[in-house]
């Protein structure tokens, strides 16, 4: 599973990074999986944080709830970044 969080501007991207909002620990807490399974990447050139973790169920297998893995990012939208400005 890979999720790309792309910020509209570098300002919000850096605030997110400084406040550690999308850390492996925070992401792990949201999804209820071990933090060691989560890898995050910061890509400043496109104000993006990429989050990757192994699928719980192989794609298309009997228990797969989302064949394209396209809707699993939704709970991340509840996270808040403090915008000091």
């Amino acid at each position, binding site marked *: 599973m*890979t999720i*790309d969080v*792309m910020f509209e501007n570098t300002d919000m991207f850096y605030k997110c990074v400084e406040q550690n909002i999308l850390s492996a620990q925070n992401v792990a807490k*949201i*999804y*209820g*999986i071990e933090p060691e399974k989560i*890898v995050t*990447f910061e*890509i400043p*050139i*496109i104000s*993006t944080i*990429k989050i*990757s973790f*192994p699928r*719980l*169920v*192989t*794609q*298309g*297998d*009997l*228990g*797969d*709830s*989302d*064949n*394209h893995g396209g*809707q*699993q990012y*939704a*709970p991340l939208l509840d996270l808040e970044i403090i915008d000091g400005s």
Partner: protein
Amino acid sequence: MSTVRVKAIAGNGVLGSGFRESSLLRGMRLDPDFIGCDAGSTDPGPFYLGSGERAFPKIAVKRDLALLMKAAQSKNIPLIIGSAGTAGGHPHVERLKETALEIASENGMSFKLAIIDAEQDKSKLTDLLNRGKITPMEGSGLDHDTIQKSERIVGMMGVDPYVFALRHHANMIIAGRSSDCAIYAALPIMQGVDPAVAWHAAKILECGAAAAETRSSPDCLFAELEKTAFEVEPLSEEMICTPQSVAAHSLYENANPFELIEPDGVLNIAGSQYHAVNSRRVRVSNSSFEPKTIKNAKLEGAIFLGYQSVIIGGIRDPLIIGQIDNWTEKLRKRLKSRVHDVYGNAPPSYRFNISIYGKDAVMGDLEPIKNFTSHELGLVLEVTSESQEISNNIISLARHQALHLPIPEWSGLITGFACRHSPSFLERGKVYKFTDNSLMETENPLDFFPCHFSNIEDGKEIN
């Protein structure tokens, strides 16, 4: 010294998804050296690899393919199609070849056709496994048991088979399962473009207009490759590429945004630079490519799981919704008991799944919201077993249990489940799953991806 320059058109991101004819025509006026199109993906799931079917209907595939074939013929440039028929196995390649020959016949076309197979022989794979040439990418990977159980196994080819076909002057290539990028990287590499440039450009090309800032519909993409850099622009005048959109697309669908692993090596885009040439065209440079000392190919297999029956329905009673976990627990127990009643001492084995929309159907175990407040729940009940008849029988038993499952709050007989259909169940037929991903060493890729040529004259296959 001549300057290396290769111009490529990508038809779209997947053959059959459509593109604007005006975009293709606009691209042809730019004098391309080849046209490519990815015809497959694992995105739609294991059904296509297992069954031999294709995800996009023939009528849609034929529409796209006919336009691409006519365009390629008009300028006598190669048309390169990879991952034929969604899954890129033997029946998928055969089916796309048939469609291509239909088009050729209807239009009186003549050309040299190359067919590249990607389906692997099971005894060959068993031998490779014994010699330690197949390694798991995740989980336990392929073992002897899964090789035998698989309906079919395909390898994902890199550029070598395409280069072989092009060197033998193929006008059209229909290949089985490929790295999406190999489809587009082969010809540029053959012409002397730096592999880093070829692979990175291919990464952008393979999804068609998806690298545009806003992709209003699937459409064509154009790339111009020089020795050490490339430029891309969408062929629809409504769309634009920006440094942001191209850089963002470079990390699409990959777990790691900086290192993209291909059959032939690793593309590193950590230091890549993206510059706007004008308001809609982007120049990319400074990518690097590290070739593998031993090439390998990802192996994808599909295992048949059984036949499935499905019931779609819903619940609206808040009293039932408020105790839905108890309700589903009771349903499972009662179904098990009914199966024993009906089948006696040796009941068939089956898997029974309940997906609850409005609760956690979309995220399953990942769902963080534990207290939901939906006024309505949608339920999908699934039974999978070794035969359609058994699955139909068991789901019918489940239907009746669900319909009248009592809860303490109501006395008498309730109807606590809203069935969507009559008959209440749908026969899903055969269901499959993918095998764990594995890597196969391919010292000489052509041993694993054989290429056959035939001459098409006036729409007829001569040999």
